């Protein structure tokens, strides 16, 4: 009886409880993490928006505005700008023989980033191999500038392959382009 009392001393009981708590804690931390559940897929609804996209005339002298309908999920500046750039690179979508696309077919569209009123057009490396003349290169850059700045004031800075560059060949890409730089 005395030995039993000594065995169930207060210290031993507390030590036993602590041991049990430690064993439980060990078991909890070693338990594998629960597999995250896939979020429920909610399809954003596409809706049509009309945008003015600029192309070249057949004489590479004037810019030709063409109203294109594009599908967007939202009408934020970034989404609209990217949709316009995609439409610009994809071709005129017009049967008017006086309207020329500014890049050859299947040329990837530039990636557009918007920060406030500043647009950044990241041209893929393929644009450095277009071999346009000076006036052709001006038409290339100015139609994209006018397309992006059609509804908002601001400026467009051109990057090539994510990097700042001096030129594609003839025109100055060191500074941003505004509408004033691209008058017809």
């Amino acid at each position, binding site marked *: 009886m005395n030995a039993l009392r000594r065995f169930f001393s207060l210290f031993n009981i507390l030590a036993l409880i602590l041991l049990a708590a430690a064993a439980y804690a060990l078991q909890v931390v070693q338990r594998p993490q629960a597999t995250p559940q896939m979020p429920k897929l909610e399809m954003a609804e596409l809706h049509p928006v009309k945008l003015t996209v600029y192309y*070249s005339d*057949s*004489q*590479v*002298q004037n810019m030709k505005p063409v109203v294109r309908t594009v599908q967007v999920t939202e009408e934020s500046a970034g989404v609209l700008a990217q949709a316009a750039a995609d439409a610009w690179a994809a071709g005129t979508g017009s049967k008017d023989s006086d309207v*020329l*696309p500014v*890049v*050859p077919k299947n040329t990837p569209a530039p990636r557009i980033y918007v920060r406030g009123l500043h647009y950044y057009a990241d041209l893929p490396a393929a644009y450095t191999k277009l*071999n*346009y*003349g*000076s*006036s*052709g290169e*001006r*038409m290339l*850059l100015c139609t994209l500038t006018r397309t992006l700045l059609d509804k908002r004031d601001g400026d467009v800075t051109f990057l090539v392959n994510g990097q700042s560059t*001096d*030129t594609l*060949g*003839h*025109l*100055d*890409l*060191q*500074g941003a*382009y505004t509408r004033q*730089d691209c008058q017809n």
Partner: protein
Amino acid sequence: MRPQVTQAAFARWPQLALLSVALVGIGLAGAQIAGTQVSGAQVPGAQITFGKLNLAGKQVQSINLYGAEYASETTLGDLLTIKRQGAIVRVEGLGHVLLLPIDEDQVRSTTDFNTVQLDAQRLKARTATLVNGNLYLPLDTLARGLGASYQTGQFTLATRTLQTVSSRTGKDSDRLVLDLNREVTVKDELRGTVLRVILKGTLAKPQRYTTRAAFIPYAEVTQEGSDAIVSFTLPQNSGYRVYPVVRAGGTRIVVDVGPGIPSDIPALMERLAKPLIVLDPFKVQGTGRDVTLEVARQAAELLTKAGWQVKLTREQSGELSISDRLSLARQSDVYLALDIGRFPGTTRGGVTVYENTGSSPSLLVNTVRNGKVLPYGSLVVGDVGGTRRLSELLRGELKGSVTTGQDSIAKMLTLSETAQAALLLELGWAGNAQDRANLAMQGRVQAFSVAVARSIATYLTARANNSSQVASTVITGAKP
């Protein structure tokens, strides 16, 4: 008997006195009538009549004072600088200085009682006087002192003439001496390396003067309209100064030239003498013949033969880096880019001259082009007018051989760096069969080269001539 005679005389005295008074009255009336008939007006109480005077081609009023013709200070003020200094009047003009005492005794002033000083010479002559408090000067004395010719009613200045050209050699400078019969307005212009001393309104005998001087071996005198021009080549590292020396009987213009004269010619002016022409033939791939380079090389050859300084950005062997091209563009006085139009799907053809427009990356260039006027600013930064003039000249030169369009282009990397005239010449379009055929012809390439060379040479020559307007002007003697 004597007292009887005396009494008789005294008895007739009132009659004689009356007769004398009547005669004097008739005399005065006659003089009055005569004066009125001659001049139409008379100053009461003095022997003065008004008259008309042709003063160096201008009709003015004079007075006749006891037989001598005088003109007022106001009348002569248009031609001469007249200052009263106490009892003396100082007359300056036509390269002379005259000192005339003011004699308030009008009768005495018209005699040779007074001594006047004409430049360094003192002599007895009529002098200035006051009439009704106004200063009048004797025209014959003025004519004598000023080297003019005079007869009553006519005061004529001698035609300004370059009489002699002489030279003197020195150790580190030479002197050219131009003697004229009277004062002259002198302007000097540096056109390239040729110094032109322009003597306004002067007659000169066109002649080439050869000297023994080391720095001015010759001087050419020519007549351009009403001006005489003395021109000679300014040696390298030499300065010059032009100044007048007034002396009796004429004016002397002294031109000192040589390394001993400190040069105050702005370094910018030297650019006019040796402008830099940069031809930038763009590399056009896939068109076969390198037409842009051929046109650039042939035009450069023509310009170099004519003494112009030309640089190409590309040769057969290689091309300059973009930073070197931009550096040349910044230094250029004329920058001409040559390109061939390329764009997918276009049928466009023909030659187009594009004028550089838009802002420049340079703050200085933008500031000057936006209207800020700086000394010699036009030599540092050319306005858009320069590009336009060069464009017109180039299109004019091309007119005979091809139809040329005109357009403007902004944001061109090289063109926008230029501070002077800059053009892009598009020689044709790669996608146009007619253009390709034309560019394959040697004759067309030759025509482009000649047009480029001639238009640039004409533009730079005219620019050098016009920019000499910034030179200085020296005026001797005459009132401005």
